[in-house]
């Protein structure tokens, strides 16, 4: 096993173990709570999705030798985002009409977050044009979640009368930003388009699910999948590790953010 794949494995194993631990803690907390247990169940669902995404990628690398372009692991990651959106909606449910009115003025400034997300996503899709459907499935909930996180952070920070859960919303924003920056800067200089054209010349293609296949009848000089597709440079290094680590602060922030006084 080469160095980059080993680092990938370590990253997924550590990330998955941490997600499992924080998910178990959230579940235990949800069982203890009388009111507000729904929030911790949702947070447990978020960590469970990240854990299953890591497990799927690990198993795909181990059992099948390479992960697919669009896989259920990515669907689980989208599910994690959906759980965070549900948490954001739940946190606004308890507002009084006066609090809701006070928060409305921060909706427009909160649009800055989706604007930044969309800009990053456009840049990333230009680097990876062959996984545009994969990325759109991930980008839409990220944009929605970033809007909610920034809106709620601004409203509670400036609103005064609103409950103070700013640390939680800030943690969500940090998680999104780390993801975006990491995904973009780890792939700068690596052109998926060039790699894909190179693969086609050497007799590889992929089906609709993204699984790499041999082109029938092509006289291939390479028996196995070329290295640049197994381990894209830099991307393998601590795959989304910083993003996963920053996610684990969400439990702490939700607990300490004044939700359940």
């Amino acid at each position: 096993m080469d160095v980059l794949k080993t680092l990938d494995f370590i990253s997924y194993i550590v990330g998955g173990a941490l997600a499992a631990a924080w998910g178990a803690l959230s579940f235990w907390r949800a069982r203890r709570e009388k009111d507000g247990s729904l929030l911790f169940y949702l947070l447990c669902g978020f960590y469970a999705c990240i854990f299953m995404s890591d497990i799927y990628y690990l198993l795909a690398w181990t059992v099948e030798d390479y992960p697919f372009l669009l896989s259920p692991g990515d669907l689980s990651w989208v599910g994690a985002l959906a759980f965070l959106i549900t948490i954001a909606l739940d946190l606004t449910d308890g507002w009084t009409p006066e609090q809701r009115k006070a928060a409305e003025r921060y909706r427009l400034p909160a649009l800055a977050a989706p604007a930044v997300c969309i800009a990053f996503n456009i840049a990333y899709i230009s680097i990876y044009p062959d996984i545009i459907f994969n990325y759109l499935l991930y980008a839409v909930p990220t944009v929605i979640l970033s809007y909610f996180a920034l809106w709620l952070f601004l409203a509670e920070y400036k609103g005064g009368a609103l409950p103070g859960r700013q640390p939680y919303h800030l943690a969500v924003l940090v998680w999104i930003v780390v993801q975006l920056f990491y995904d973009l800067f780890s792939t700068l200089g690596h052109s998926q388009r060039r790699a894909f054209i190179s693969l086609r010349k050497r007799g590889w293609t992929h089906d609709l699910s993204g699984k790499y296949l041999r082109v029938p009848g092509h006289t291939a000089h390479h028996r196995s999948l070329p290295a640049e597709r197994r381990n894209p440079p830099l991307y393998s290094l601590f795959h989304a590790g910083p993003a996963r680590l920053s996610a684990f602060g969400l439990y702490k922030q939700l607990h300490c953010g004044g939700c359940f006084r």
Partner: protein
Amino acid sequence: MKALPIFFFVAEHRHGRDSIVAASLAVGLGFATFENCFYIMEYGSSDFLFALTRGFTAGVVHASCAAILGYGLALTCRRRRLAVPCAFALLCATSTFHAIYNLLVAAEDAWRAVGYIMPVITAVAVMIGMTNAKLKIKD
């Protein structure tokens, strides 16, 4: 597809949490039964042990996924604003769980055995959780 009856049940009827989970379990088991009948009709039952193992574990997987989906919907069904994103999130989670099972049972040797054991462990955990919840309500 098998989540649609659960969504319909939750949307159209005002039931308690236990009823929603029971209905979800029933849908999951029913789908598993239908799938097993379909596989036996198409591939035959010459390898009886494989058919028995696959039938049991697939049933457990479908029932577990449906129970988890139903429990999550039961927590949010009374608040429609939460129900939609929560339902989508639960669908993604249970789909990934099912995909992990499919990946493992399609593999060789030890991985296949892990794939057969995984849903059993999950089902036991779900049953313990549901039993504890009922004991808590009684207390």
